[in-house]
C-alpha cells in the first residue's frame, strides 16, 4: 500500500532532565527504523532542522513550571494532532513538584542569590492540567520499549498496550522472590504501575515508585503494611514524595501521613 505522507513527529521539552527524550536516541537498534517510518520534524536534542507544524504526533517531556511554559504548551497543543506525554514530569509534575508542598519563594531564595531574576510558578503541574492529552506514558524514566509501542500503535492506528496493573505482576513473571514478604524490605511495587520490568526487586531493593500509581492503587493498605515492618510516618511521607509526588493517589497518601 502506498503511503501518502510520513507522519510528522515532534518532540517538545518543558521542565525535565532530558532522560525521556534520550530514551528515543537510546533505541539504538530501532532508531533508524523509526526515522524511516516518521518524519522527525522537530527534535532539537537531535537535529537543528525544524519542519513547520502541524505535527501528527507530538511527544511532550517535562512539567509546567513557568508562566512562559504555561503559554507555550497551548501553542504545542494547537500544532499537534495527537499529543502524548512521556515520563513522570509531563504526566505527574515530576520531582520538581516537591515544591508544591512548600512555599516556592523559600525554594528560590535557597538556590538563587537574586530571587528577582527567577520566574517560576508556585506549582509544577502535569501537562494534562493545562491542555487535553491523548495518551500518557508513565515512568521516571519511561521504558524505551513502551515508547516504541506507543509510536508503533500510533502508526498502526491502534491503542497502545501499556498495562495498568502493578509491578508485582512483573516480579511474578520474572520469578523474583517478593522482597517485602521474604526480606521485610519496604516496597512500593503493589501500588506502582508496571512497565519498568520490575528492576529494583531483581537487584534486592524495594520498588521506589518511579513509574507512578497503577490503576486503583490501595496506598493506605500498603502504608499500613510498611509501618508494620518499621517505616515511620515521616518515612512514608518521603516514600510517596519522590518522582510522582503530585499524582493524586500518592499525594493523598503522603498528606495523610504528614498530618498524623
Amino acid at each position, binding site marked *: 500500500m502506498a503511503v501518502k505522507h510520513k507522519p510528522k513527529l515532534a518532540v517538545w521539552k518543558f*521542565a525535565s532532565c532530558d532522560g525521556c527524550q534520550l530514551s528515543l536516541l537510546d533505541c*539504538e537498534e530501532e532508531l533508524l527504523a523509526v*526515522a524511516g517510518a516518521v518524519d522527525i520534524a522537530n527534535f*532539537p536534542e537531535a*537535529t537543528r532542522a525544524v519542519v513547520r507544524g502541524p505535527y501528527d504526533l507530538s511527544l511532550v517531556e517535562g512539567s509546567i513550571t513557568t508562566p512562559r511554559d504555561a503559554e507555550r504548551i497551548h501553542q504545542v497543543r494547537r500544532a499537534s494532532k495527537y499529543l502524548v506525554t512521556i515520563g513522570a514530569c509531563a504526566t505527574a509534575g515530576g*520531582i520538581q513538584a516537591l515544591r508544591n508542598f512548600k512555599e516556592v519563594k523559600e525554594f528560590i531564595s535557597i*538556590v538563587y542569590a537574586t530571587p528577582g*531574576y527567577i520566574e517560576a510558578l508556585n506549582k509544577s503541574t502535569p501537562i494534562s492540567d493545562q491542555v487535553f492529552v491523548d495518551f500518557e506514558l508513565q515512568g521516571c524514566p519511561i521504558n524505551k520499549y513502551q515508547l516504541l509501542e506507543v509510536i508503533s500503535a500510533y502508526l498502526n492506528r491502534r491503542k497502545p498496550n501499556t498495562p495498568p496493573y502493578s509491578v508485582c505482576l512483573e516480579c511474578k513473571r520474572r520469578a523474583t522472590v517478593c522482597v517485602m514478604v521474604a526480606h521485610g524490605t519496604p516496597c512500593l511495587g503493589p501500588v506502582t504501575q508496571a512497565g519498568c520490568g520490575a528492576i529494583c526487586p531483581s537487584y534486592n531493593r524495594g520498588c521506589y515508585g*518511579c513509574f507512578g500509581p497503577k490503576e486503583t492503587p490501595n496506598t493506605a493498605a500498603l502504608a499500613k503494611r510498611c509501618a508494620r515492618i518499621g517505616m515511620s510516618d515521616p518515612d512514608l511521607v518521603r516514600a510517596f514524595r519522590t518522582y510522582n509526588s503530585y499524582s493524586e493517589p500518592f499525594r493523598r497518601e503522603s498528606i495523610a501521613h504528614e498530618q498524623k
Partner: protein
Amino acid sequence: MNKNRTIKVDYLARVEGEGALHVRIKNNKVTEVKLKIFEPPRFFEAFLRGRHFTEAPDITARICGICPVAYQMSSVHAMETACGVTVDGPLRALRRLIYCGEWIESHVLHVFAHRAPDFLGYPSALEMAKKHGDLVRQALQLKKVGNEIVTVLGGREIHPINVRVGGFYKVPSKSDLRPLVEKLKWSRDAAIESVRAVGKLEFPDFEQDYEFVALRHPNEYPFNEGRLVSNKGLDIAVREFDDHFVEEHVPYSSALHSTRKARGNYFVGPQARYSLNFSKLAPVAQQTAREAGLGPVCRNPFQSIVVRAVETLQACDEALRIIEQYEPPDAPSVQVHPQAGVGYGCTEAPRGILYHRYRLDDRGMIINAKIVPPTAQNQKTIENDLRHFIPDRLSLSDEKLKWQCEQAIRNYDPCISCSAHFLKLDIQRE
C-alpha cells in the same frame, strides 16, 4: 554587510536542554555576548533539605538524564566522606566500570549525533545516516555497548537503580560481566577507528590560553577520585572547593556562573582532563591520540570532538581491564552509619567536574546541599570563546555566523538541564 548587527540563536539544537545566545556587534566590534540558559529552575538544592542521606543518589540522578551516573557518584562519595567511610577494592572498581559505560554512551552521542553533523554539513545524525549509514550504525552500536555496561551494573541505562551509598544493592557475578568482553574488544577497535576518523576533520585555527581544571590521581585517569588541579597552579583537595570557586547569579540565566576566586573563568571537561592527565591515559589511547594529530595538551576547543573520541577509547580499554581483573566482593556494599557533619564529593562527569556538598544531622537528614554541575562552570569560558571567535568571522552572513557560533558552543557539549539551568542565538549588529 551592516556594521551593527544582532545575532540570535533562539533555540540551540543538539545540546542537552534549553539555551540561547545573544551577541551584539557595534561598528564591527563585539560588544556583548550572553549565553542565556532558560531551562526552568527545578530547585534540587532546596528540596534535598529534609531528605535522608541515602536518597541523594536517586534524587540527584534526576538532574540529568544524560549523565545520571555522575550525579550518583558525586553524591555517594560526598555522603561517604560525611560518614567517614571509604569504599575500596572491587566495589570501587565497579564504580569506575559503570562510569566508563556512561562516558562511552555520552561521548558517542556527542561525537556522532551532536557534533559530527556540523563538520560534515548535515542538520542531524539521522540526515547524515542517509549518506554515511555505516558510520552512524557503528556509532549507535558503540553507544549501545556503553549503555549495556550501565544496564548490567545499574539495572537500566537512564536513572540506574543499583547505586547506593556504600556500594551497590547487588553486585554482578563474573559470568554477568563476561558477555561484555567480546563487545568491548569490538568497541575498543571501533573507538580507535573513530578517533582516526574525527582526527581527519578540518578544525578552525582557534586556540586560547585556558585555565583547565580537572581531577588528578597519582596512577589513574580520573573518574571518582583525585585532587583538583589546574595548569595555572591550583592543587587542592576536593573539600577545599568552596575556598577557591564562587558561583554568581546573573540576570539572564537560570544557571549560576562559576568562577575561580580572583581569577575568573576556567575550563572543565574532556579537554581539561586530557590536557592535565595525558600521561595517565592507557598506552593505546596515548598512541591513537598522537596518530590523530593531538599533542599532550589540546587548546583548540574545536578539537574536543577528537578528545572525546580518545576518552571513549580510554573508557573501553579501562572497562575491559576492570572486567578481566574482577573478583566479586564479599558484600555488595559497606555499612554506612550516619553522623553529623559535612561531606564533599567531586567526580568527573562526561562534561567535567561535578561537585556536591552536603551537611547532615546525626540522623542522616540533609540540612543543606550544594551542587555545581560542569556546564555552569563552563558558561563564562564559552562566552569568552565567542568574544574571540566572532571578530574574525564578521564578514559572514548572519545565518552562517549563527551556525559557526552554535558550533563554538557545542564544543563544550553543554548540558543545560544539568545547569538547571540553555540555547537561542541572537546576534545584534548595530
